[in-house]
């Protein structure tokens, strides 16, 4: 399999890939699978009815990874892709997804990935997803990911979702439901610029005793961009839920944070925190006393914040 220059650049941005990754992978470019590999413990099969793949991770699989990057390099492409992950009991794996769109043309390019995760008892997944857009065309770069996670007893999932540059419109929807002792950790990093729009909605249902969810979003809205962070946690059992939205606004950026907590059990402990504001003046001054210009100081503060 050979990558062209744009593919390489996008793959580097979204998955730090410079070549074919180790372990299982499925690389999709402009609606075609350009490479696929299953391993002894991780089996990837294409879906028959719709576009997408089934990824089956056998019970007990440890220290293995699956890469499923997607790149779009042609203007005007629109696709919906369904990927289902079946993670067997006691497995512990890394899943790296991500989508990069390069749009130099006039038509909008759009990738809507629907990812479903079925984690069996005690399974552990670290899921890393990066979104990136580039290209100077008038056509928009649009990403509407849907993520569903179903965690069986004692399963743990960490999601790191990053979108730093170039995606014009994004509407992210994440739903999860957790059984006893299951644990979900979400770390979202988002930066919007120019006239971009980003909406991120979560609905996490804590069904089992001692299940927990920690959903934290750090974001920066600059120029004329808009973000909406809508995080809802429902506690149906003795459980612990925490959501946090920590945002910096710059220029004419706008952010709406909508907290949502619903406790249906007296021992559900749910908490929401939200803070939106511009960069603290004293932080800028401090870095300037170390010799940075105001612009350099701003950049350092934001890079650190979104790390």
């Amino acid at each position: 399999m050979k990558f062209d220059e744009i593919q390489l650049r996008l793959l580097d941005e979204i998955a730090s890939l410079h070549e074919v990754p180790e372990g299982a992978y499925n690389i999709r470019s402009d609606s075609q699978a350009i490479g696929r590999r299953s391993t002894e413990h991780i089996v990837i099969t294409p879906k028959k009815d719709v576009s997408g793949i089934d990824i089956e991770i056998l019970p007990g699989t440890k220290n293995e990874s699956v890469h499923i990057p997607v790149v779009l390099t042609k203007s005007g492409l629109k696709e919906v892709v369904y990927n289902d992950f079946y993670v067997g009991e006691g497995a512990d794996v890394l899943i790296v997804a991500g989508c990069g769109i390069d749009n130099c043309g006039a038509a909008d390019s759009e990738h809507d990935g629907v990812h479903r995760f079925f984690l069996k008892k005690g399974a552990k997944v670290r899921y890393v997803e990066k979104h990136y857009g580039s290209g100077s065309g008038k056509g928009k770069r649009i990403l509407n990911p849907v993520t569903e996670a179903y965690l069986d007893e004692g399963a743990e999932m960490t999601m790191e979702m990053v979108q730093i540059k170039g995606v014009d419109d994004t509407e992210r929807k994440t739903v999860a439901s957790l059984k006893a002792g299951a644990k979900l950790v979400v770390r979202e990093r988002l930066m919007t610029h120019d006239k971009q729009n980003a909406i991120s909605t979560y609905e996490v249902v804590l069904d089992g005793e001692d299940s927990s969810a920690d959903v934290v979003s750090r974001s920066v809205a600059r120029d004329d961009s808009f973000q909406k962070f809508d995080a809802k946690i429902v506690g149906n059992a003795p459980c612990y839920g925490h959501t946090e939205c920590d945002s910096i606004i710059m220029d004419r950026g706008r952010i709406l944070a909508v907290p949502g907590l619903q406790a249906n059990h007296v021992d559900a402990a749910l908490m929401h925190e939200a803070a939106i504001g511009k960069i603290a003046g004293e932080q800028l001054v401090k870095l300037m006393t170390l010799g940075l210009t105001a612009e350099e100081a701003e950049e350092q503060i934001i890079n650190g914040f979104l790390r």
Partner: protein
Amino acid sequence: MLELKNVSFIVPGDSGGKKEIVKDVSLVVEDGKLVVITGPNGGGKSTLAKLIMGVEKPTSGRIFFNGEDITDLSVTDRAKKGVSFAFQQPVKFKGLKVIDLLRIASGKHLSVGDACVYLSSVGLCARDYIDRELNSSLSGGELKRIEIAEILSRSTKLSIFDEPEAGIDLWSFNNLIKVFEDMRRNVRDGSIIIISHQERILNVADEIVVIGGGRVERKGSKEEILPTLLGSASVSNFCTGAGNKEGV
């Protein structure tokens, strides 16, 4: 050499009046000298330091650094010309790590090893701290020490420390004094201004300046000024109080 000529900082006060925070301060800090500024709380010491760094602009008067009028220069330009300032209350950052700040301060891509040297000299077990975020998870005393390490890594011609001892435990205090003494040796012709209420810091001064009510009340050699301070009740008051000022 730093020279302040008739520097004042006046802000609009309540009921239309004026509040004179720094009044007509003239001061010279010679190369190679360690000057300690002391005086009562609210006397205008930190404000004076901010005026020197450029964080505040004087409403009148001029500031000269190595013969150049820097009154109209930005904070950044002054920093580049060799002025450093350790804040009384260290600023916190979400996401930025101790190593990041040391790299920014030193202006180069410090190796972890080099960064550790600065942290060790302020008594921090370096490897435990280098990757810590500069946020509220650090204690007041730890933040203070990291702040001092940043200034050390800059090794500029003029370093200003605003109550460096606040929140620092007794054990580290001797080391801190040693840090300042080393700095004097290591930066050629460098001068140091320390704002402090601590007798032991006053003791290592070449000169002492007493600021009260925004004015220079007294200044002179340590030998001249120190006895007058220790004799007065107000000073012994704020000396004993300083140990409890963690994180103020």
